[in-house]
């Protein structure tokens, strides 16, 4: 029996946004980093834009599809790098789900920077925890924790500012 898969406009939009996120993540993966695990995470700008413009579910689709596609493209599928990306993505999506009422109900108080910083911290802490428990089972991992968390704070803030800026220029154009 044949089944037809009908594509909704939503599917097309998710695919388009995911493609943009994949492109950003791929370019970023080609840029060398001083410390493995420290990178700007620019693709998360797309996640936040989708979360704020559409809804959480669309953002989750775009993010998880991106993680899957990028891991396939760079040959990390099911390798430790993939597990770390997936766990980080799930953790940040979880915290975004919890934090989004702040931005939706009190937009004068909380903006994209809050979401971005919280998501970056959740991402980094989850990855540190997995590295500690699974890959390097030693308390020595914590010596580097301040470096990673500091990077998450900085890049989380910068990405959040970019999202906020893109959204103000978006609404200014309308």
């Amino acid at each position, binding site marked *: 029996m044949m089944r037809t898969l009908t594509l909704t406009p939503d599917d097309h939009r998710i695919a388009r946004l995911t493609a943009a996120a994949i492109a950003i993540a791929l370019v970023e993966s080609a840029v060398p980093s001083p410390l493995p695990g420290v990178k700007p995470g620019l693709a998360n700008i797309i996640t936040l834009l989708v979360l704020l413009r559409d809804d959480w579910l669309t953002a989750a689709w775009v993010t998880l599809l991106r993680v899957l596609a990028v891991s396939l493209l760079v040959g990390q599928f099911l390798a430790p790098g993939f597990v770390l990306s997936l766990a980080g993505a799930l953790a940040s999506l979880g915290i975004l789900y919890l934090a989004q009422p*702040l931005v939706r109900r*009190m*937009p*004068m*108080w*909380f*903006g994209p*920077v*809050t979401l971005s*910083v*919280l998501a970056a*911290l959740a991402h980094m802490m989850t990855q540190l925890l997995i590295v500690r428990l699974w890959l*390097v*089972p*030693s*308390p*020595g991992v*914590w*010596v580097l*924790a*301040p470096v990673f*968390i*500091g990077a998450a*704070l900085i890049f*989380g*803030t910068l990405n*959040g*500012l970019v999202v*906020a*800026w893109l959204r*103000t*220029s978006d609404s*200014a154009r309308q």
Partner: protein
Amino acid sequence: MNWFLRYPLKRLLRPGDILVLLAGVAGWVMLSISLWQSGPAAEAQIRRDGVLLAAYPLNEDRTVSFAGALGITVIRIESGRARIVSDPGPRQYCVKQGWLSRPGEMAVCAPNHISLSLTGGPPTHESMAY
């Protein structure tokens, strides 16, 4: 700078954002202080698969051996330092690492599932004498 003038930082960074950032930075500072207050290393811990097998003070010289997955790993503790003397692993990374002397340092003999790590003693407050 034209875009910056049109969209001042105030509109991009809202009051709640600043609170979240301050909380994040405060947490980060506390974390850094608690993790990086490094006095001299005081104790050598030997683990197998992350489970603590033994801990020895660094101020008593001794040589100890532990059975791992492949064979015996020999560890030497001497004058406040510790090192892996021999290990059955094929690449000998942990042996080549040499002496460990600072808290948080560690040598992992992954093939043999044995790791040696140093922990700090009570923190020293020399810098507070000023």
